[in-house]
């Protein structure tokens, strides 16, 4: 069953003004429970506007959004519980930390949900472990931590609400390669442990390629496609036209194919690419 479904979802900024812009244009989409998907698209393609509809931050100009089968905005009183189902982590979430201690900061969301103390404590401990925050860090002020640690605290705060859908907008931006790997690894762990739906907005095709199983592509306010990772990167020429570079390794293999080498499947990670090359070279005895 689709956990997120949109029907002709359309959103217009500044309607009736000279700055009118259709940011999301008749998007029809079904995201299944448990999907781990990437969301890509050039700046201004409508990604952020789209995801803000998923937890009712924006109200569609026309069309509908369904979460777990329930249509948003039919009953305003239902918005709050629905927002608990869809957790949104904005870009640079560490700027939103505010509590005295890391523990209290992570507790903020679960507390707002009206959970009892024991349940809140259980969730904080579980999430802290998942994101790699040690006990000694929990009583520190979040402002004493390093940038990477702050980011983890902020993400943990949303994870602890155990939303059915977790949406993260550029969770790894501004981090060094190792920091990126750690944050993405921890999101992967969360997905594996919870089996919840995770949507990852990213400009890094390399990060997307390594982590997700499906990709949603937005282009000029429209949904270009929502499909398996390999199938999306297979359309590399179209993606490049939209200003979305495919991973460097994909371009290398595309060029080898264009030169007439039989490279079989689409390559979008170095690991898969080197495996494929070793296989081809081994058969040739090129060592």
């Amino acid at each position, binding site marked *: 069953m689709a956990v997120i479904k949109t029907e002709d979802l359309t959103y217009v900024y500044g309607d009736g003004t000279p700055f009118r812009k259709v940011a999301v244009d008749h998007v029809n989409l079904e995201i299944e429970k448990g999907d781990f998907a990437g969301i890509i698209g050039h700046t201004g393609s409508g990604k952020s506007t789209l995801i803000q509809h998923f937890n009712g931050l924006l109200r569609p100009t026309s069309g509908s959004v369904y979460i777990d089968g329930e249509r948003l905005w039919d009953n305003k009183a239902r918005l709050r519980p629905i927002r608990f189902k869809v957790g949104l982590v904005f870009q640079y979430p560490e700027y939103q930390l505010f509590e005295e201690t890391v523990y209290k900061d992570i507790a903020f969301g679960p507390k707002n949900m009206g959970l009892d103390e024991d349940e809140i404590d259980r969730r904080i401990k579980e999430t802290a472990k998942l994101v790699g925050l040690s006990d000694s860090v929990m009583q520190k002020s979040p402002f004493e931590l390093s940038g990477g640690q702050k980011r983890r605290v902020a993400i943990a705060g949303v994870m602890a609400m155990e939303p059915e859908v977790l949406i993260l907008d550029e969770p790894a931006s501004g981090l060094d390669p190792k920091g990126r790997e750690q944050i993405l690894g921890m999101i992967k762990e969360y997905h594996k442990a919870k089996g919840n739906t995770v949507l990852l907005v990213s*400009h890094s095709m390399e990060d997307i390629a390594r982590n997700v199983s499906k990709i949603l592509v937005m282009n000029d306010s429209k949904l270009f496609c929502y499909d398996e990772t390999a199938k999306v990167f297979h359309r590399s020429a179209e993606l490049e036209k939209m200003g979305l570079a495919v991973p460097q390794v994909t371009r290398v293999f595309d060029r080898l194919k264009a030169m007439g080498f039989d490279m079989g499947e689409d390559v979008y990670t170095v690991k898969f690419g080197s495996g494929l*090359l070793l296989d081809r070279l081994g058969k040739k005895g090129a060592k």
Partner: protein
Amino acid sequence: MSENFIEIKDLRFSYINDLEDPPVKTEVLKGVTLNIRKGEFLAVLGHNGSGKSTLAKCINAINLPEAGGVFVDGMDTLDEDNLLPIRQRVGMVFQNPDNQIVATIVEEDVAFALENMGVAPDEIRRRVDDALKTVGMYEYRLHAPHKLSGGQKQRVAIAGIIAMRPDCILLDEPTAMLDPKGRDEVMRTIKMLNEQGVTIVLITHYMEEAAQAERVVVIDGGKVVMDDIPRRVFAQVEKMKELGLDVPQVTELAWELQKAGYDISTEIITEDECVAKLAELLGGV
């Protein structure tokens, strides 16, 4: 005669947190020696917290040395009289374009620093137009900056710097918040400025960007640990990974094949080189 534009000699720098009693001192730069030639395109790599940004801020005298020295065009950053001339020679572009734009119209934003410097109005007009044309944003000169894309905003920020006609531009992760197209726009602008003779110091986490520089410096633990042309830096795949960094995907691919015993160098840093070498191997030549 030395043609070094920037000379950094055994530079030490610490942040002091005096909210604590006694004040807590965090040593960030622990003896950096680095010379940057006029017209050079230098990329600086290092993991978060390695001291890259602190170093950049020492170059245009936002941070002052605790020990050692920084000289820009022969001027000591410790001498207060040099502050203004140093900042006019070395412009800085930061990561978040939204934090660098002050005006409500693009061309007014680009003119901001010139007005502060007391440049004559007709000269301001000329320089603003030139700068916007250089970064390809001239047709947006009357637009509101907040309506631009990230890449466009960052180019406006760069225009604001080049309107001051600096000899050198320091860019601290200027593409971190941009999409691939925006990154490409900014990288092209940087390379074009460098071709026009502007010294570029680019701090980045994107290895593909560093691969386009003439020289790569790696900072770790407050010290320079590698300093070479890009291909010789990236060829040391294991060392780069140990430092919490990465290498371009094509280099990693070559490294995987090399480990398996194939005759391929890890000094491959561009797509063209990689495709050519793989075609040679696959062709069985």
